[in-house]
């Protein structure tokens, strides 16, 4: 292991010195030109990454920026603006033109749809945010389409597993043999220890669904399709909200008692503890939301930056090194995909456990 690290370090130093040598060989003019191009490239990579992290109204696999061509397909836009407005995202031409529907003009600006006048003017407020009206946007975006497709795949996968159990008399065969240990792990090592033998069964459906949902979407995010679902704050907010609601609505009396009137402490402490505990109720799902979002987004940013670095280096040592690094990070991201799904499920189970815990009020 240490030997390997030494090799990597040596490789790094060699490639960096090679890169700097490469740079000095150019004349000053060329150097400036290269720098300018590089800056341009870097800007483009940055933009690309930011664009990738956001949801988009069309499904673009790759773009040719020189020719201004995008390869992909357009998706339906569904707006609520004094009535339902449905049209294809091809009307926006990837944000280059305004879409005119029923006499209204809409502009796609930084991934969001604004109502504009016929000239497409965007007014800004003092924080440099667009002040135009945003119609409610229920579009089938890239993320929504991914959600639909993956949900159908998940349904097909798990229903076929359920069928195979019925057919094989409860003996797991094929993919069931691979996924059953995971299902059992969630039941025996996540649900039962955290929630308890008595109450765990009613939470199993949610825990299993959320685990496989997060895991599969983390994994699909690692494919070159450029889908980023679990790294989107709206998705993680929705998941955390469901965990939060389930926790509150299944909570037993002792749970509320522990929040508002902590047993076993002096009454002054009870008063101090109540707001803290109440805050904790909201902080827990908030942390769930941020953790998943931040981990997956960070993974995507690092991976895309490394891939972008290959083009910045433009020499075979640096580029191949970053390729190797990107590969290594991809492997780590595979682990992170599973780990984040595990953590989300685990913590959800823990919160459910708090909700149904039956204390003897001795402590």
């Amino acid at each position, binding site marked *: 292991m240490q030997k390997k690290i030494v090799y990597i370090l040596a490789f790094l130093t060699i490639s960096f010195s090679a890169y700097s040598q490469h740079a000095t060989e150019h004349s000053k003019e060329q150097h400036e030109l290269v720098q300018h191009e590089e800056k341009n490239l870097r800007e483009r990579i940055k933009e690309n990454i930011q664009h990738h*992290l*956001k*949801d988009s109204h069309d499904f673009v696999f790759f773009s040719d920026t020189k020719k201004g061509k995008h390869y992909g397909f357009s998706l339906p836009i*569904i707006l609520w603006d004094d009535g339902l407005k449905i049209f294809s995202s091809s009307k926006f031409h990837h944000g280059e033109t305004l879409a005119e529907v029923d006499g209204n003009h809409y502009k796609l600006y930084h*991934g*969001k749809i604004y109502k504009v006048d016929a000239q497409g003017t965007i007014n800004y407020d003092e*924080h440099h*945010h667009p002040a135009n009206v945003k119609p*409610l*946007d*229920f*579009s*089938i*975006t890239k*993320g*929504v389409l991914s*959600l*639909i497709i993956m*949900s159908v795949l*998940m*349904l097909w996968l*798990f*229903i076929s*597993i*359920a*069928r195979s*159990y*019925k057919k094989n008399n*409860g*003996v797991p065969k094929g993919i*069931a043999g691979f996924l*059953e240990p995971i*299902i*059992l792990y969630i*039941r025996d090592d996540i649900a039962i220890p955290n929630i308890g033998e008595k109450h765990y069964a009613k939470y*199993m*459906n*949610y825990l*299993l*669904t959320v685990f496989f*949902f997060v895991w599969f979407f983390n994994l699909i995010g690692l494919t070159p399709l450029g889908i980023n679902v679990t790294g*989107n*704050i*709206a*998705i993680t*907010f*929705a*998941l955390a*909200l*469901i965990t939060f609601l389930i926790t509150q609505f299944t909570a037993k009396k002792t749970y509320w008692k522990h929040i508002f009137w902590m047993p076993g402490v002096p009454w002054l402490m009870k008063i101090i503890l109540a707001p803290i505990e109440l805050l904790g109720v909201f902080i827990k799902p908030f942390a769930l939301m941020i953790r998943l979002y931040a981990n997956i987004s960070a993974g995507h940013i690092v991976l895309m930056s490394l891939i972008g670095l290959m083009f910045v280096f433009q020499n075979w040592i640096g580029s191949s090194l970053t390729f190797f690094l990107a590969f290594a990070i991809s492997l780590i991201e595979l682990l992170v995909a599973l780990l984040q799904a595990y953590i989300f499920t685990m913590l959800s189970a823990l919160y459910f456990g708090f909700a149904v815990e039956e204390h003897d009020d001795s402590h």
Partner: protein
Amino acid sequence: MDKLLNDFSFGLFFWQIFLFLLLLFLLKKYAWKPILNAVKDREEGIQNALKSAENARKEMQNLTADNERILKEARNNREELLKEARTMRTEMIEEAKGHAQLEADKLIAKAKEEIENEKQTAITDLKNQVADLSIGIAEKLVKDQLDSKGKQVALIEKMLKDVKLN
């Protein structure tokens, strides 16, 4: 935080809630329930199989213990029977021996008696015969001796002589 709020898309949130709940509902009904039930059934089956195997083992153990006990009893029984038979045999032999001795003694005594009797008879017979024979011889002698006058006279003389001696 500002960026986070700016990135938040209500449409995506709405679809996520809707699709996730739908997925949850469908998976619950058509996947998780059958899968978890199948797993549970199987686990219970294994548990039961193990339990019944354990029971069978216990029963087997009991059976073996029973067998052992019965065997032991049988062995003891046999031992006792043999012992009894042995004593009986000895007794019988002893008894037989006693009887035989008695009988033999009796026979011998009888035989002895008979022999004695026979002997006495034979002796008596012999005596009689000897007496007869002696008388015959004496008769003949006497006849021979006394068939002439001279001899008779000689004899009387002699006898007289003996008497005189006496």
